[in-house]
């Protein structure tokens, strides 16, 4: 743990604490709508951290993370509705399923040395196969979706992940913080250095005795399991699941926007990216609605433009730049 915190300078410790306190007291300060936007940003931070561990640290570009999100969501929802298994238990099933899927993907990918772009395509193809499967599988509700009962009498069963907006807000905050801690601990661990070594130069890493396949599997498993937990949260928060939403490639793209724009491979990147994009997206939608336009594509269109601008101008995202401006650069380990 001590090593994990070594990146903190006194200045950035204060900044982090201020952010933490602000997020803790937010529910008592802002209105419900603003809170829901912060919640979405926290969720984006969490999923972004999970994805960033695979791409930002280990250099594996997954464009199919909706697969793990969907598997986690469906597993916990079905276990809850059909078998009465609560989410605190089924979250382990969700993680196991995601790891299982990741294992098949990784086995194919790493065993047969499917690298770079081919690996990314493999992740899309896997997610698409599962999406089409779920679309046509009546047990999981098919394209018509799967629903969790919304019942007022259940609304305070926190052990069944049933609760009000406040409950889900703090849960999202806890997950976002946990993901930051996991990422920080990983980065300062031997495994984390192995990730970075593989990202920078697989050959050199191999020469230094890093077991490339094993390390890549671990990155994939950690990332997939974390994403599946996010899926469980989504299932119980939204109460409805459609393959065309949660398993769609556009979902995978949504997950990767925040960490890329915030800063690939940085600890704060997913946080900064999510807290920039989500409010911007809702401001756009709201602004257009205010002048009487309902434009479904505008948000994603702007996200696309930002993505292009960021990757062209500063491929490491805005966090490194922002950190310099604010004097919050990480201490060199």
């Amino acid at each position, binding site marked *: 743990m001590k090593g994990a915190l070594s990146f903190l300078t006194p200045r950035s410790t204060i900044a982090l604490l201020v952010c933490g306190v602000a997020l803790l007291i937010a529910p008592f300060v802002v209105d419900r709508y603003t809170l829901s936007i912060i919640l979405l940003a926290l969720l984006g931070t969490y999923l972004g951290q999970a994805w960033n561990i695979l*791409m930002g640290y280990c*250099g594996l*570009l997954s*464009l199919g993370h909706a697969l793990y999100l969907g598997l986690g969501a469906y597993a916990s929802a079905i276990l809850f509705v059909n078998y009465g298994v609560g989410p605190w238990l089924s979250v382990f099933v969700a993680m196991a399923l995601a790891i299982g899927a990741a294992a098949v993907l990784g086995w*194919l990918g790493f*065993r*047969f*040395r*499917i690298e*770079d*772009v*081919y690996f*990314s*395509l*493999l992740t*899309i*193809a*896997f997610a*698409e*196969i599962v999406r*089409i*499967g779920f*679309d*046509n599988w009546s047990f999981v509700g098919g394209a018509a979706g799967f629903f969790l009962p919304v019942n007022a009498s259940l609304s305070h069963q926190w052990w069944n992940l049933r609760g009000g907006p406040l409950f889900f807000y703090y849960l999202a905050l806890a997950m976002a913080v946990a993901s930051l801690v996991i990422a920080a601990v990983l980065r300062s661990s031997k495994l984390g250095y192995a990730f970075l070594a593989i990202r920078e130069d697989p050959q050199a890493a191999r020469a230094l005795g890093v077991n490339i396949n094993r390390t890549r599997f671990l990155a994939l498993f950690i990332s997939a399991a974390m994403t599946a937990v996010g899926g469980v949260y989504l299932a119980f928060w939204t109460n409805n699941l459609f393959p065309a939403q949660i398993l769609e*490639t*556009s979902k995978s*793209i949504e997950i990767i926007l925040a960490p*890329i724009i915030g800063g690939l491979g940085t600890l704060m990147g997913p946080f900064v990216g999510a807290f920039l994009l989500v409010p911007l997206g809702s401001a756009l939608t709201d602004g257009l609605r205010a002048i009487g336009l309902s*434009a*479904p*594509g*505008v*948000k*994603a*269109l702007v*996200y*696309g*433009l*930002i*993505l*292009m601008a960021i*990757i*062209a101008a500063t*491929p490491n995202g805005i966090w490194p730049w922002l950190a310099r401006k604010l004097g919050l650069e990480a201490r060199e380990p």
Partner: protein
Amino acid sequence: MSFSLYVEVLIQGVLSGLVYGLMALGLSVIFGVVRVVNFAHGEFAVLAMYCAFVLFGLAGVDPIIASIPLAIAFFVLGYAMQRGMVQPFVTRPQHEQFILLVGVALVITNGLLLVFGPESKHVDLPYSFDSYTVAGVLIDKVRVYGAAAALAVTAALFAFFRFTSTGTAIRASADNLTGAAVVGLDVKRLYAISFGLGLACVGAAGSIMMALTDMTPMLAPSLTLLAFTIVIVGGLGSMTGALAGGLLIGVAEAVASLVVSPAIKSMVSFGLLVLVLALRPQGLFGKAES
């Protein structure tokens, strides 16, 4: 099921496969020369479909005929894109190129969604429901025309690469970039032409597809994946491979939708993709890397 039904489906698969092949050919040319993976390929196909739809709506131009002006327009678009946007990325890490084109894809899909809405669009051609009967086998007229047009564009492209000096120069720089630069070829210009040609393929293919199927902006990602599947099955960078892959996927999907169910047909092609990636990653026609 009768024998003639199978023959019908087989022929239908071959005819669609030729159009798929043309679309995938564009991806293959861009990757083979510029070494950039065009993740927005399906989005460009859908853009071409909408262009064809608008041309049909405004001036009544048959989408199959519109494929020629659209090929030219998309060539210009591709040329400009490579010059203005993609060129600086040629030497950058692969994931950055990929992310750039993910951005392009988002912009195209959602731009179209914004302008045309999510409803599916189609064109009614006077011969949409006509068919030929050959020895008791029914063949859709529109598919024959579409396949013929696709084949013509493909042949023109092959001829360009084979017989013109620019085509030869492009093949040379794809083969040995340093060598090409040493003998004084303007590689940047050749890259822009190649990207243009790649988009010309997709422009023509998209236009033809408008005559064959309904379309929505949401179709784009699956078309991108389809193009990738074809190109990887055939061998990334191999032009013959892209064509053969198109035929194979076209037939496989047609047969799968007959034997299993139409909804499952894309699973078959993704399954094929996974199989090829695992067993022969260089594709059926690709050269193995040493």
